[in-house]
């Protein structure tokens, strides 16, 4: 999708948080990306390589955790993990389509490792 913009936003968030903590260097940026966020891992890593240049994250690792998409079935009153990455949420128990997506759109910086 828009990985370069996201990578820039990621570095901005990290630098802002690290400065506030009085850190000198960012060693790693940990991000969480939902399976339905539309983010391509390779594109994000490539964009990160450019976005970190000239910042205190210039040598930082990027640690990406992908969160599976989870929906809620009102009929079964239980959550299920989507078995596809397309966002089609059909309950595996009762075959009812669900409109209630509980996880999968996330795009956020969770924490940093700094020195």
């Amino acid at each position, binding site marked *: 999708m828009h990985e370069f913009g996201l990578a820039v936003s990621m570095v901005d*968030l990290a630098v802002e*948080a690290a400065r506030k903590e009085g850190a000198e260097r960012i060693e790693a940026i940990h991000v969480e990306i939902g399976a339905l966020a539309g983010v391509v891992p390779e594109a994000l890593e490539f964009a990160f390589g450019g976005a970190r240049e000239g910042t205190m994250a210039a040598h930082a690792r990027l*640690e990406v955790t992908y969160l599976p998409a989870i929906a809620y079935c009102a009929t079964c*009153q*239980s959550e299920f993990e989507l078995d596809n990455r397309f966002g089609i949420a059909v309950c595996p128990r009762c075959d009812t389509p669900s*409109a209630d997506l509980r996880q999968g759109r996330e795009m956020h910086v969770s924490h940093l490792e*700094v020195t």
Partner: protein
Amino acid sequence: MAGTALTRDVRVSGHGTVETPGARVVQVQKSLMRHNDAVAVANRAAFANCLVLNLVSSPGSGKTALLERTVRDLAGELRMAVVVGDLETDNDAVRIHAAGAPSVQIVTGTVCHLEAEMVARAVDQLDLDGLDVLVIENVGNLVCPASWDLGEDVRVTLLSVTEGEDKPLKYPRIFKDSHAIVINKVDIAQVVGFDRAQALANVHRVTPAAQVFELSARTGEGMAPWRAFLRERLATKRG
């Protein structure tokens, strides 16, 4: 009730784990979309008294035609305005204006979607207090606009019968996040061999809660339920 909840904590590295010797952890927990989302929140506050739609579709599905017809049909009843995004030209804004509604063209250049900030700047040129319905006609694209909240109340995805019944399956994210689906050009459905039942089944599979409107912006067929939807959503919003 014996519902089950799947574990949310699936992090590979573990939360707060320090893998670099001598490093310390700084919690951040902030969204990469925070700037857009903050502007969207401000837009939503500015839109407190009018119903705002974010209308998305692929290029050529008939977004502008639907708006021209809607503006003409509701003239004298609802005060409408349109903000329209395109990569180039102000052709669509001119068409909307000719139909009788104030319109603001956003020329995005190479940007394939609208962002909350572009909308915030565009609505500065409109008298929001004098409006009942504001429609944001997004750039024709079924991929990128899905990720950007503009501050709208209702997201509407339009598809036309010429695009194939499997469009919702190919672009599920945008359909999934829509409150209403409009199927346009039903007047030529037969000519192009449109399988209505299959299309509706696909829409339902991807977005089971969305309301579906089948209409022709060209002939006016099926417009009444669509107009009723706008009235009803506006009434709900104004309480």
